[in-house]
C-alpha cells in the first residue's frame, strides 16, 4: 500500500469519436528510474489499451517520442518521472502540430519541408568510387557536425512560437539541416538551397526567439544555424548587388 504513485494527465483526442479533446488522469506506480514513456507504456499495457502514441528506441535517438510534458517539449524517453514527482505530470501532443489522435501528431508538414531544403550532397561532378573518399579533415567535419546530429524529433518546432503562428515558416530543424549540407566541404549546393532559405517563409520569419535551441535534446542549436544562414544570405545579397558582373 505504501507504494508511491504519481498521476499522469494525458491529452486524449479521437477523430472517430468526434469529441473535443479532454484530459484523462491515470494513477501509476512511481519508480525512481522510470521515464515518462515508461509510465505511458504502463498505462497502455495495464490500464487503457486505447492510448495512442509513438515510440521505439527509448534511448533518445529515434526521435519519435516527443511530447509536451508540463508544457515543455521533451523526449518522453529522456524525461524522468523523478523530475516531477510528487506532482502530477501533464502530457500533451507536441504543440503547433495538428493532432491525429491522442499524443500522435501529424508530421506531413515537417516531412515536406525536410525535402524542400534538399538535404543531400549536391555535387557538380560525381567522382567515381574508385578514386576513394572525398578528403575531409577533422576540422572540416567539425564545421557541420553539430547540425548533422538532428534526430528530426521536432521538439524545436513545438518550441518555436513563430512556427505556431505561421505554419508556412520553414522552421528550425529544416534550416539546420540545410546548413548541415551547406557547411559540408564536400557539398556544392549552397546556392540551390538558398532559393528556399532566402525567402520570407525561409530564414527571415525567424525572430531569434531561441527556444528551439533550448528545446533541442541533442544540442543542434538550430537558432545558431538560422543566424548563420541569415549572415550568409546577407553577404550573398551584397555580393550580388555590388558585384553583379563578378564571380559569385
Amino acid at each position, binding site marked *: 500500500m505504501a507504494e508511491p504513485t504519481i498521476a499522469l494527465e494525458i491529452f486524449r483526442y*479521437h*477523430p*472517430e*469519436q468526434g469529441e473535443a479533446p479532454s484530459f484523462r488522469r491515470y494513477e501509476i506506480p512511481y519508480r525512481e*528510474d522510470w521515464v515518462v514513456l515508461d509510465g505511458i507504456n504502463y498505462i*497502455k*499495457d*495495464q490500464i*487503457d*489499451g*486505447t492510448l*495512442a*502514441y*509513438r*515510440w*521505439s*528506441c*527509448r*534511448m*533518445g*535517438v*529515434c*526521435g*519519435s517520442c516527443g511530447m509536451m510534458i508540463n508544457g515543455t517539449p521533451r523526449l518522453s524517453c*529522456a524525461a524522468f518521472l523523478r523530475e516531477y514527482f510528487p506532482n502530477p505530470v501533464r502530457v500533451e501532443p507536441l504543440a503547433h502540430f495538428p493532432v*491525429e*489522435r*491522442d499524443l*500522435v501528431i501529424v*508530421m506531413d508538414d515537417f*516531412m515536406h519541408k*525536410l*525535402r524542400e531544403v*534538399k*538535404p*543531400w*550532397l549536391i555535387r557538380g561532378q*560525381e*567522382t567515381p*568510387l574508385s578514386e*576513394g*573518399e*572525398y*578528403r*575531409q*579533415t*577533422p576540422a*572540416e*567535419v567539425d564545421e*557541420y*557536425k553539430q547540425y*548533422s*546530429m*538532428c*534526430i*528530426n524529433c521536432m521538439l524545436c518546432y513545438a518550441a518555436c512560437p513563430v512556427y505556431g503562428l505561421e505554419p508556412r515558416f520553414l522552421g528550425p530543424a529544416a534550416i539546420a*539541416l540545410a546548413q548541415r549540407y551547406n557547411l*559540408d566541404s*564536400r*557539398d556544392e549546393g549552397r546556392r540551390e538551397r538558398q532559393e528556399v532559405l532566402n525567402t520570407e517563409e525561409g530564414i527571415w520569419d525567424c525572430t531569434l526567439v531561441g527556444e528551439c535551441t533550448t528545446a533541442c535534446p541533442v544540442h543542434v542549436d538550430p537558432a545558431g544555424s538560422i543566424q548563420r544562414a541569415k549572415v550568409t544570405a546577407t553577404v550573398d545579397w551584397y555580393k550580388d548587388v555590388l558585384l553583379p558582373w563578378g564571380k559569385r
Partner: protein
Amino acid sequence: MNPWQNTNSAADQMHEMLEHDILVIGGGAAGLRAAIAAVQTNPRLNVAIVSKVYPMRSHTVSAEGGAAAVIKSNDSLEEHINDTITGSDWLADQDVVEAFVREAPDELLQLEHWGCPWSREPDGSIAVRPFGGMTIERTWFAADKVGFHLLHTLFQTSLKFESLTRYDEWFATKLLVENGRCQGVSAIELRTGEVRLLLAKAVILCTGGAGRIYPFTTNGAIKTGDGMAMAYRAGVPLKDMEFVQYHPTGLPGTGILITEAARGEGGILVNKDGYRYLQDYGMGPPDPWPRLRAMELGPRDKISQAFVHEMRKGRTIAGPYGDVVHLDVRHLGETKIDTKIPFVRELAHRYAGIDPVHEPIPVRPVVHYMMGGVHTDINGATPIAGLYAAGESACVSINGANRLGSNSLTECLVFGARAGRHAAAFAAHHRSLDRAALAAQARDEAKRVAGLDGTDGGTERIAMLRTEMTRAMEEGTGIYRDEGSLSKACDVLRTLRDRFARIRLDDRTRSFNTELIAALELECMLDVAEAVAHSALARTESRGSHQRTDHPKRDDARFLKHTLAYSTDGAPRIDYLDVVITRWPPAERVYGR
C-alpha cells in the same frame, strides 16, 4: 460498435489498388539501400518503400559502434573474410562472405559520397577503429552514432529520387503470393486504419530483427520480426534461428547498449574484485593496451558466456536489475571519451546515473541481434519468386553462429543493394499481375485483421501474453540452453499461441489503433519465437551463440549445416542445408593469441 465488422466496406476499399514495380518493406539501412539500388539500376521503375514507422525512426538509428570494411593498406580482404568465418564458428557460407567483404568498401565509400560524416584522420582520410573479433582495425565510424548517421544519410539521399514513393506508417500484414510469385502485400494505413492492397512485381523484405521476443534487449519496440513471420507464413523457411546474439555490455534495467566501441577504444571488463576475468576463459593475455581479437576485443558470444560463468562463481556485482560486471573506461580520459564515445557518456549518465569519466559502467549481457532470418541466396532471393530479403530480417549467411560487431550495418548495405538490383531485374521481366486473385486475398486478410479484436468473447490481454512469451524465451533459450529448458519453452509458446486466438483489445477504433498493431506484432513474435526454440531444440551441439549444456561440443559431422524452420499447422518442421565451405575448412576458434 465495431467498425471492422462491416466486411462490405472492407471490400469496397480494395477497389483502390496501389501498384508499383518494386515494394520495399522497411525503411532501415537495408530497405533504403535496396530502394536506392533499385531506382538506380532502372530509373524507369516505380519503387515504393512501405514502413511501419517513418524511415528515420527505424532501429538502424540506434547502432553506435561502426561498420566494417577493408580500406587501410595494412588490411586485406582475406583477413576480413577469415575473421568473419572464424567469428561465425564456420557456419557462414563462404562464397557469401567473400562477396560481402569484396563489396563492403565500395558500399561504405558510396555512403561517404552521399555525405555520411565519417570520422577522419588528420589528413582527411577515413578513420577506423578496432572491434571485437577483428584482427585489424577496420571499423569505420562517425563518433559513436554510426547507425544514426548512416540511416539519416541514406534517408536524406533517398529524398532526391523522384521515382521513389513512400508509405510511411503503413504496417504490412501479409505477403500476397499468387501463382508461385510474390506480387504484393496487404498493409494497414495507420492514420486511417484502412487495410490496403499494394501490388508489385517484386517485394523486398527489410523489416529488421526480432529482439523483442526477449524481455531484456537493446532492440527498440519496433523490432518484432514481422517480415520474418510474414515470409515464414508464406512458406519461406527461417534459417539458423537458434543463433541469438547476446551483447555483453547492456545497461541493466533498460537494456540500453553500451557500444563495443567502448572496448575498441580501450575499455576493460572487470568483476567485483576489479579483476579482468576474461583471461580465465581462454581469451588472454590481459595486456594493459587493447590487443586485437583478445580479451575485451574477443567475439560477443564468448564474452557473454564468460559473464554467466563469473556469475555462477559469485564474482559478479549484485544490482537492482540482476548481476552486473563493470566496464571501465576511466583510463581513457575525458578528452578521448568525449571525442570517440560521447554518446556512451551521455547514455551512462542519463540512464545509469554515472559519469564514465569517473566511475565504471555497470553492464550485463543483453539480447542484441538475430543471426538467423529469412532464408535467401547470395542475391537476397528467397525460394519464392519475386520475394527478396535483406538486412537483419534476412539470413544470407555471413554471420553464421555469431556475428562480429560492425559487420551487420555493412551487411545491410551490401545485401540491400544486391537485393535491390536483382529485384529490379526480376521486376523488369515479370510484368503480369494476377489482380483479381490478389484482391481476393487482400479481402480475406482484411477480414482476418478485423476479426482480431476479440469482440466475439476474447479475454486475453496482449501485454500479458507478451510478458509470458518473453519470460519463456529468456528462461528457455538464453545464453545457455538444454533440452529441458528448450522443450519447456516450446510448450509454453504453443499454449500462448492458443491463447492468442482469444485476445481482447480495448481499442475497437481504426485511426491509429496502436493496440491492434501491437497484437499483430505479438502474433509475429510468437511465430519467430517458436522457430527459435524449435531450431535450438533440434541442434544438439554447441556452436557460437548456441550453447547447449547437454551437448557442449561442436559437432561438425552432424551440424555443419544451416537449420531451416518451416511453418506448419503444428510445430515448425526442421530441415537442414549444407554450409558452403570453399577455402576455409572448419578449425578450432582461437582467440587471445
